[in-house]
């Protein structure tokens, strides 16, 4: 994916596992303004499907990008409302 975006904040949840990557992502999103973009870096392999599922089900957020960089999983989420 090559979507254009500026990252407003990066959340580091490396070393945490379910449910904390999703919970902390939600808490971080709540502190942003609409249209701002959050980057989340995690080591939890489950975060790939968890963050995707969360973004899909939750109102006001949009998943822009996800990448598997070996040991680190990167997620980019925009707050839409």
């Amino acid at each position, binding site marked *: 994916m090559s979507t254009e975006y500026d990252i407003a904040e990066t959340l580091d949840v490396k070393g*945490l596992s379910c449910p*904390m990557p999703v919970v902390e992502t939600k808490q971080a999103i709540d502190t942003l303004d609409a249209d701002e973009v959050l980057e989340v870096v995690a080591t939890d392999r489950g975060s790939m499907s968890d963050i995707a599922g969360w973004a899909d089900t939750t109102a006001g957020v949009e998943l822009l990008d996800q990448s598997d960089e070996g040991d680190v999983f990167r997620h980019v989420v925009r707050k839409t409302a």
Partner: protein
Amino acid sequence: MSSDVSEGGDPADAGPDDGGADGPSRAELQAQVTALQERVEELESGVVADDADGGKRMTIIATKGTLDMAYPPLILASTAAAFGWDVTVFHTFWGLEILHEERSKELQLSSVGNPNTPMPNLVAALPGMDRLTTELMNRQIDEVGTPTIAELVDTCLEMGVDLQACQMTADMMDYDEAEFYDEVTTGVGAASALSEMADADIQLLV
């Protein structure tokens, strides 16, 4: 059906009845279409409003107080809160251990009758074995970066999950309200749990 409809209509609006035809008149059909359109719009606006605030409600009944069984309700509750859902967890019987601030930090795994622990029941029944398997599980929990039960309770409360302590079982176990975590709801029973469940989209018993 058609005769029912025409009986319900107002004859003044019905227009000329063409000589014994028993179907609804054009005006009656028009009125029905308008009513249906209004109803569809009403329902659609409800659906949109639901989506806008995340919408869903979940109620979990937590009845178990072993270390392994304390996790699922709290993990689901905190995750659902992250979805923006309205979540209630009603704790009853041994589920109350999760809300008891002191005891929640000392939850144990049961080794006997648990085929997932790597020891036969005969060994598992020896004194101190529950402590050992609990210690092993706590070490695993720490290693994979899963929060403790106390941390999950705090997270749930922070995110607005309504953690409720069943009054009857609290009385039965002689627990004082002050022994629970601060924001726990007390003074609730089966009827309030059922009424929450009736309004919920998702109901789970753990």
